[in-house]
């Protein structure tokens, strides 16, 4: 009713909003669940299905002697006058290397497990299993300029730096046997739930990786273009006795499909004889070496991916949209390919492959458009000249 009376007036008057009464929906605020509670309910996971099993070695308990020794050390520190003086004068500097060494022996395994959970490593390797990596693995990639790049727990390494097998060191006595498995958790080209085995060395005596049986030769990581960061994991297993894994030997010239691997199934088969004890993993992103890997080693075209964003919500089209610029409104409902084709043809008209493109104008809109041109078209031309909007999709 109100609108029909005002319709007779001039368009300069703003239309008054008709406000509807507010109706209380749902529970009153005192009883309603908060957003946090609702999210918790949505993400609720039953304990029966999410309980995890420790498949590694049990944590080492500190003996009484160690605790006494530590207490004595602390008492010595407290009575040291020089240390106190340097601490008060802010001259006390701790040795980061020593801190790291002690950390690896004491709380290191727990922190590594925490960060591995954050990256979903155990979830995708063993499902419901996890282990505390008591033994520290030092995996160093040789960058040819004299330095070495360590693999810790999640640092980013480029594929160009990981072309060759890293140097692996860990503490061990000569009688023990080890297995080292290097897998990529996200890199499988065809099956999503499976991994690729990049390197498998079995029955390693003591420290020497060269003396172990290389069942699967080392392959460089190849994170696909546009897919982001892939995880690559080293797991060191301790063996009870010499094991013969019934895996066919894979060399660098055999097919990629032979390297398809599911750690969970493989571990289930051999779990009585091996226990995981060491963990190191890194992330890797696309690089030009991945392209040369696909072209030279696999003799295949390199796939390129882009993230699949959800399509923008566009309101269903109306016959008579009010207060909407008709050209922009109707462009939303046109085929985007046809629109881009128009811009492309316009761009190609002024391009000559044999001549250099002219330098961009400093004030592109200084040139006046013809007065007979309608205002919406003038605005459209000005936007193209400024390089705004669809002209960049080309």
């Amino acid at each position, binding site marked *: 009713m109100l609108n029909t009376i005002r319709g007779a007036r001039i368009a300069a008057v703003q239309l008054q909003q008709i406000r509807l009464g507010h109706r209380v929906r749902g529970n009153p605020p005192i009883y309603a669940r908060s957003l946090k509670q609702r999210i918790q309910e949505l993400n609720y996971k039953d304990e029966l299905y999410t309980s995890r099993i420790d498949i590694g070695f049990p944590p080492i308990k500190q003996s009484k002697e160690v605790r006494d020794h530590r207490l004595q050390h602390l008492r010595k520190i407290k009575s040291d006058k020089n240390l106190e003086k340097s601490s008060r004068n802010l001259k006390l500097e*701790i040795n980061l290397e020593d801190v790291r060494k002690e950390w690896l022996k004491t709380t290191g395994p727990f922190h590594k497990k925490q960060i591995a959970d954050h990256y979903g490593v155990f979830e995708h390797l063993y499902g419901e299993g996890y282990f505390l990596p008591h033994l520290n693995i030092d995996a160093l990639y040789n960058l040819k300029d004299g330095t070495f790049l360590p693999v810790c727990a999640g640092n980013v390494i480029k594929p160009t730096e990981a072309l060759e097998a890293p140097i692996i060191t860990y503490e061990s006595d000569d009688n023990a046997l080890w297995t080292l498995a290097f897998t990529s958790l996200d890199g499988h080209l065809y099956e999503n739930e499976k991994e690729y085995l990049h390197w498998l060395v079995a029955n390693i005596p003591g420290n020497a990786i060269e003396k172990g049986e290389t069942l699967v030769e080392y392959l460089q990581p190849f994170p696909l273009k546009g897919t982001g960061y892939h995880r690559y994991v080293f797991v060191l297993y301790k063996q009870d006795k010499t094991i013969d894994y019934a895996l066919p030997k894979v060399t660098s010239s055999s097919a990629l499909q032979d390297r398809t691997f599911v750690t969970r199934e493989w571990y289930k088969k051999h779990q009585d004889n091996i226990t995981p004890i060491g963990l190191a993993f890194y992330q890797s992103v696309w690089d030009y070496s991945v392209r040369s890997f696909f072209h030279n080693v696999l003799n295949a075209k390199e796939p390129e991916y882009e993230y699949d964003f959800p399509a923008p919500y566009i309101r269903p089209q109306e016959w008579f949209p009010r207060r909407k610029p008709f050209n922009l409104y109707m462009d939303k409902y046109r085929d985007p390919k046809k629109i881009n084709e128009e811009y492309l043809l316009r761009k190609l008209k002024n391009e000559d492959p044999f001549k250099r493109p002219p330098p961009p104008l400093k004030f592109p809109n200084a040139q006046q458009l013809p007065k007979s041109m309608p205002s919406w078209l003038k605005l459209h031309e000005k936007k193209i000249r400024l390089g705004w909007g669809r002209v960049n999709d080309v």
Partner: protein
Amino acid sequence: MNFIRTVPFVPQMTRLSSTANVEFVNRNPRNLERMRIARKPDGYHLEKPGRKYWHKLILTPGNRSIIAKVIHFLNGPVVEVKTSEWALQKQLYSPTDTCAYISLGKVLAQRCLEFGITEMYCDLEPQKGGKAEKFLEEVVKGGITLQEPEVYKKPNPWDQFRPEKPWEVHDE
């Protein structure tokens, strides 16, 4: 050699495409955050700031130790350092003085770099010349950025600007 070999008709499009899957799912839970596509817990702009982050730095001073944590908005504490850890306690005179804060900053920076978390949100506003300020200085000196990148929002066709896509930036 005396047989007719039929060549199957190969449509033109296979020349341009590869044989890999059309859809690829990357299972890495931290991938979207690294690519700046993941969503931050947003929508609390009418509340006190400090809820919109992927990783956040928290410093908890205590009576007998200081705890520095990096928490994730879903997974909770991800990197923790305490001055009561034997590794640090062994070398420090006092677990709560300024030297302890400085050492804590250095150790936290080293561990975060090792674990691949180089950018985090921080809303600590320390007093000038105080211990927490020294802690933050050491963290920044160690190579951590105390600011998270903005979420990359795909521009709609009608948007004015086309920001640079984070995954198309490659350093040579």
